[in-house]
């Protein structure tokens, strides 16, 4: 029973759900100041390539390489952030979309990134965790579960911990002075300026936080799939991340996370109707836009359920 639940396919989908949820937090943070940035796939690829190359070429341990990849994304975000954030709305979206494509083309043409072939043989988190676990005495598995299954579960747990930490951080941020500034800028930038909020600073801050988290997600995914190529980070990826926020709702951090969960699982459930999969997927999105344009979760939803549940939950 447990053995069939822990099959590699389910475990892999579980990992993708968690990675996508982290990407959902990344786009939530930039949207928190009302900036529609579509550079997340670009930042993700910077994190992924940096982390992969650092481990392969320099032998850096994975747990250092992934955050370093995130910092590489932050560095690039700082460089493009100042000019890009002078733009608003659709102009920013187009500029950041262009940025993502530029990054992709650079990786496609660099020698060190191996061009269109991509990088393979990236140290795998599963294998590394397996090695650690076998030194701890789980080499032959545990209670009928193989070592591979245990290490997959352990990786799942690591991803879950990272997601929960990021979630905790994001929620704390939301209730802090910084979060209030983000909300004010999103609601009305002129009002925020008139109140003495340094809007440039907070917009850049949201932008680099989003870039860091996207970079970390990229690093994690590189070490899960042990192969990355420029195709993994094209504009389809960007749109996918954006849809998490559109589908789940972008006003609360739970929205993109729910969006990531549902939209990662949905194609798998629709596998039976695989010929019509993308059609059904599209139809669901159109229906969403028609009936819940703010996404599945909005402040209204929270308020509704809170009164309905007799104020038991604290948001």
């Amino acid at each position, binding site marked *: 029973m447990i053995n069939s639940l822990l099959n590699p396919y389910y475990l892999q989908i579980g990992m993708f759900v968690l990675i996508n949820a982290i990407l959902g937090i990344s786009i939530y943070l930039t949207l928190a100041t009302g900036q529609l940035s579509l550079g997340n796939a670009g930042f993700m690829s910077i994190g992924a390539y940096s982390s992969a190359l650092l481990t392969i070429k320099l032998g850096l341990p994975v747990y250092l390489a992934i955050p370093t990849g995130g910092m590489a994304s932050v560095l690039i975000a700082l460089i493009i952030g100042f000019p890009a954030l002078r733009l608003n709305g659709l102009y920013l979206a187009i500029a950041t979309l262009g940025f993502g494509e530029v990054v992709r083309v650079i990786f496609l043409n660099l020698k060190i990134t191996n061009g269109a072939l991509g990088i393979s043989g990236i140290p795998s988190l599963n294998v590394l965790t397996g090695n650690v676990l076998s030194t701890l005495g789980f080499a032959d598995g545990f209670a009928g579960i193989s070592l591979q299954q245990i290490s997959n579960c352990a990786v799942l747990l690591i991803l879950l911990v990272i997601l929960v930490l990021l979630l905790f951080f994001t929620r704390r941020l939301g209730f802090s002075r910084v979060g*209030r500034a983000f909300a004010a800028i999103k609601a009305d930038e002129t*009002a925020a300026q008139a109140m003495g909020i*340094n809007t440039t600073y907070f917009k850049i801050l949201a932008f680099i936080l989003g870039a860091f988290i996207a970079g970390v997600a990229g690093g994690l995914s590189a070490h899960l799939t042990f192969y990355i190529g420029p195709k993994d980070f094209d504009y389809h990826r960007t749109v996918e991340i954006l849809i998490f926020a559109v589908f789940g709702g972008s006003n609360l951090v739970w929205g993109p996370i729910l969006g990531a969960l549902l939209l990662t699982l949905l194609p798998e459930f629709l596998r039976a109707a695989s010929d019509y999969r993308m059609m059904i997927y599209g139809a669901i999105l159109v229906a969403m836009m028609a009936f819940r344009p703010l996404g599945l979760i909005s402040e209204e939803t929270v308020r509704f359920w809170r009164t309905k549940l007799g104020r038991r939950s604290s948001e």
Partner: protein
Amino acid sequence: MLKIEGLVTGYGSIKALKGIDLEVPAGSIVSLIGANGAGKTTAMKSLSGLLKPESGRIIYKGKQIQGLAPHKIVSLGISLVPEGRNILSQMTILENLEMGAYQRKDGQVAADLRSVFNRFPVLEERKNQLGGTLSGGQQQMLAIGRAMMAKPDLLLLDEPSMGLAPMVVADIFKVIKEINQEGATVLLVEQNVRQALKIAHYAYVLETGKIVYNGTAEEVAANPRVKEAYLGGSKTTV
């Protein structure tokens, strides 16, 4: 307290302000009046840093402040109540007021909140409601209260009477006068010239980006051109 010299601000090639000079003495109410499109809001945006002037100087308490970022200007003690009020409609009234004190680190914020509530009791009654649920007049009160929460020495008011019923306008102007009597200097931009001249000490008349006339409020009110154009004088044919 505030001195503007030869201020030019434009949007691309269109100059909305073509070199204006203006002075706001400490403790006074100065009114900048003019029709739609005269450049009044542009002047306010230049003063508060929302627009960068092309040339000219803005001198506040002896320091040049033209081109500074808006949050730096707020920290120097200049607060803008923007045209159209810009209430944060998804935040509560209390949150709106607290946001007004965003930069302050002194311990007097609670006391100032108290005095805003004393001035506008309706805001206290509704402090946990969302800003968007207020009527126009109440939103204007909230916008003024929010600006006062920054403890400004100079309050910039951009068309506080816009879209309000005459009775409410009278209330708002009464409050502006009180705020001034309690020590804040006020620069008031208005289309409601009659009301503005009633409470102002000095007035400047702005027409298509230039100051065409200035003087004490009485002088400006008595000027035949001002009478004719803004106060419904004998020659108007409405």
